[in-house]
């Protein structure tokens, strides 16, 4: 698996805002195909490369040139781990909506939205902070990449 280089931390924050909007639309409309697309996006970022994130490209071409440059860099490992956590919730949500278990779909999507919003608004990565907890109670999920 290719290792991503460290990134400008404002990119993932922008990406998290976009994810929050997508998940909010899913909750409001129950449009599970959109959630399925988001699930695929999470999977690509977590398991292949963060460079596949279209919001990252939007950030680099449309937003970053307008901001003051920063030397601050964030390691890619926590970001990819967070995408993996997002993938699990989005997958459960998609399966819930698609199979008629709408409540399950809403709960899973809602939890993913909570995580994305905390990341966007406060820069908090719940999955990363609670990595040790995840590792203890769900070892397969938290296996280091």
């Amino acid at each position, binding site marked *: 698996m290719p290792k991503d280089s460290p990134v400008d*931390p404002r990119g993932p924050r922008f990406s998290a805002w976009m994810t929050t909007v997508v998940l*909010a639309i899913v*909750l*409001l*409309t*129950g449009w599970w195909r959109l959630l399925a697309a988001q699930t695929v996006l999470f999977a690509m970022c977590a398991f292949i490369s963060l460079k596949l994130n279209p919001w990252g490209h939007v950030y680099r071409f449309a937003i970053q040139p307008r901001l003051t440059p920063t030397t601050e860099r*964030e*390691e890619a*490992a*926590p*970001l990819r*781990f*967070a995408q993996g956590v997002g993938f699990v919730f989005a997958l459960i949500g998609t399966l819930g909506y698609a199979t008629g278990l*709408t409540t399950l779909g*809403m*709960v899973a*999507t*809602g*939890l993913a*939205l*909570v995580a994305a*919003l*905390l990341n966007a*608004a*406060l*820069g*908090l*990565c*719940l*999955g*990363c*902070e*609670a*990595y*040790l*907890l995840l*590792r*203890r109670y769900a070892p397969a999920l938290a296996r*280091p990449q």
Partner: protein
Amino acid sequence: MTGVWALLGALAVAGAIGVLLKVREGRISRRDDSSTADLPAPVRELLAPGVTLVQLSTTFCAPCRHAKVVLRDLADRTEGLTHAELDITNLPDVAARLGVMRTPTTLALTADGTEVLRVGGVPKRDALLAALRPHLVPPSGG
């Protein structure tokens, strides 16, 4: 309509978690039951004379870098204080034995391994220094 409630619920939960974590960030706590005997070996190896700040981190922890900057600077400027970082990504038993659930968590340990205090999240420099002060050897002439 249910979707609207689900969205409002999610926003409320996010707000509550955000407030809770911000309040707890950098909070200093003391444990009464700390015993020097059950300090895991990887932690014990890091102990230096005076007080050692053992920062527990994982590969997936972004705030650990901020904590490292704060603690390293504090240790550099404070006599008798050492900073050491321990990556416990692959040492879950160390985390379990220390009762550590999140990273960064920083333990302040004396040379014999007694836990003076611990800090969850990114430490607040001044509050931490004030709490450590009684345990630090006073500088000569001070």
